[in-house]
């Protein structure tokens, strides 16, 4: 079953040089799966994620045939209705937890506030739940972390706290935009494993946005590859290394590899045709 269906999505920005199309006719569906979106910076990954939640700031414009969440077209929703969707049904985790957490509130206050917003319950109950959430994201001393301010926790810890907060309303869909790009490789893995386990346990759909092909290949089920606002290729994540589009191949070949030493790395030769060809559909 598809939880989310996106059809012919465009994100446009009026500029002095005319309209700039940041996302151009992107279509895909999302079931209970981990869908990766990869591509270079500026290819439209974040705008695709944000457009689903109507988080594109004016003068940006979102157009689509439809964006359906369990059959309901989100484009027909009012802003209060969208706020409810963002609070309860689709959550988004951004790259840098330091900017998403309130710097003058303790971690505990923030998680409890989020919990109380979604549950009609006592403070004591909210506190117990918050500690349980922190434990669920493998934070070993939750009591201490509850008392800490955001600047007092490490990057990996901050990102785990963000994930805990995003999961409090029990959303059906999680959109994670470069959630581990600011973290060290060792910590990156821990955070991904936690996210993975939670998504599986709860039967959620995950949109995982990243510029890292290896990471997406290992972590997702299906991958959309974006170039200049379009989806140029869709493939099973474990077959990403057999991708056929010259852009995807070019990106893969430009990576240095420990097992294949060479003097010069392959340089991507861009073909204008890549951005002219219509977007490939990403329906499962």
């Amino acid at each position, binding site marked *: 079953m598809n939880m989310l269906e996106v059809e012919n999505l465009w994100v446009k920005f009026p500029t002095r040089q005319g309209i700039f199309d940041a996302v151009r006719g992107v279509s895909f569906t999302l079931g209970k799966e981990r869908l990766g979106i990869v591509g*270079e910076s500026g290819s439209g990954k974040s705008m695709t994620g944000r457009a689903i939640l109507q988080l594109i700031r004016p003068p940006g414009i979102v157009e689509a045939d439809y964006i359906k969440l369990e059959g309901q077209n989100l484009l027909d929703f009012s802003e209060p209705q969208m706020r409810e969707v963002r609070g309860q049904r689709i959550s988004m985790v951004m790259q840098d937890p330091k900017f998403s957490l309130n710097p003058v509130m303790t971690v505990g206050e923030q998680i409890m506030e989020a919990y109380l917003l979604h549950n009609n319950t006592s403070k004591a109950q909210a506190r117990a739940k918050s500690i349980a959430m922190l434990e669920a994201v493998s934070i070993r001393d939750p009591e201490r972390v509850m008392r800490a301010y955001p600047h007092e926790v490490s990057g990996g810890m901050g990102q785990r706290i963000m994930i805990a907060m995003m999961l409090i309303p029990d959303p059906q869909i999680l959109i994670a935009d470069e959630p581990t790009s600011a973290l*060290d*490789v060792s910590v990156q*893995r821990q955070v991904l494993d936690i996210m993975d386990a939670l998504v599986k346990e709860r039967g959620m759909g995950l949109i995982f946005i990243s510029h890292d092909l290896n990471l997406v290949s*290992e972590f997702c089920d299906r991958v959309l590859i974006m170039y200049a606002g379009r989806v140029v290729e869709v493939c099973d994540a474990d077959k990403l290394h057999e991708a056929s589009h010259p852009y995807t191949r070019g990106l893969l070949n430009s990576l240095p590899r420990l097992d294949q030493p060479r003097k010069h790395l392959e340089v991507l030769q861009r073909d204008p045709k890549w951005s002219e060809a219509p977007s490939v559909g990403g329906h499962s």
Partner: protein
Amino acid sequence: MSMIEIGNLDVWFGDGHDRVDAVRQASFSVAEGESFGLVGESGSGKSTILRAITGLAPTWSGQITIEGETLTGKARTRKFYKNVQMVFQDPYASLHPRHSVDQVLGETLHLHGFKDIDARVVKLLDDVGLGGRFRFRYPHQLSGGQRQRVAIARALAGEPDILLLDEPTSALDVSVQAEILNLLTDLRDERKLTYVMVSHDLAVVGHMCDRLAVMKDGEIVEVMSVDALRKMEASHPYSQALLKASIAA
């Protein structure tokens, strides 16, 4: 001959209660024409070693010898800055937003005491693969990769022997990273440069370097050859874990 000799290097920030020991008892040497990597997670002290060499760290003890000259304190001679140059991760932060490429390179050449500045600006741009059409652009008119080329051109202005590269491609897309790494490879061959390269990416260090030091919590836990790295022959448990994490990813 050793171009760089680091012995029992300690670097710290603050004092008393607030003292942070960023680097502890680090020792390694880099031969002429060699490329040496520094890897380890963020906060392990990699950048601090480069900063101590260039006189940007406030307090240090131990030995730093560059091309046979032993350094003290923070003061560095003009000759030192001609011979040793640094390239940073974020070229945007390291370029003055209101200075054109021409100004950046021209002023640097002037500081190094060159007279034929015009011809040298043209040559430098050419050497880093930026044509003359970039000469009068400002940083915001350049892509990330182009800005990093300007930063490399500036570093090359004094015709240095040693480049200290601090995560030079970490902020770039992999396609652009490939172009910059190829440029660094070619420049090293043409100019017989010695590199010290900091990176969190083992594959990048494996591609560029001959040997590397693995750092953890301010200490070098292991110095190994890239050949050993390729064969997954790390001996310290931390390097093994680092290697495993980056192969899996």
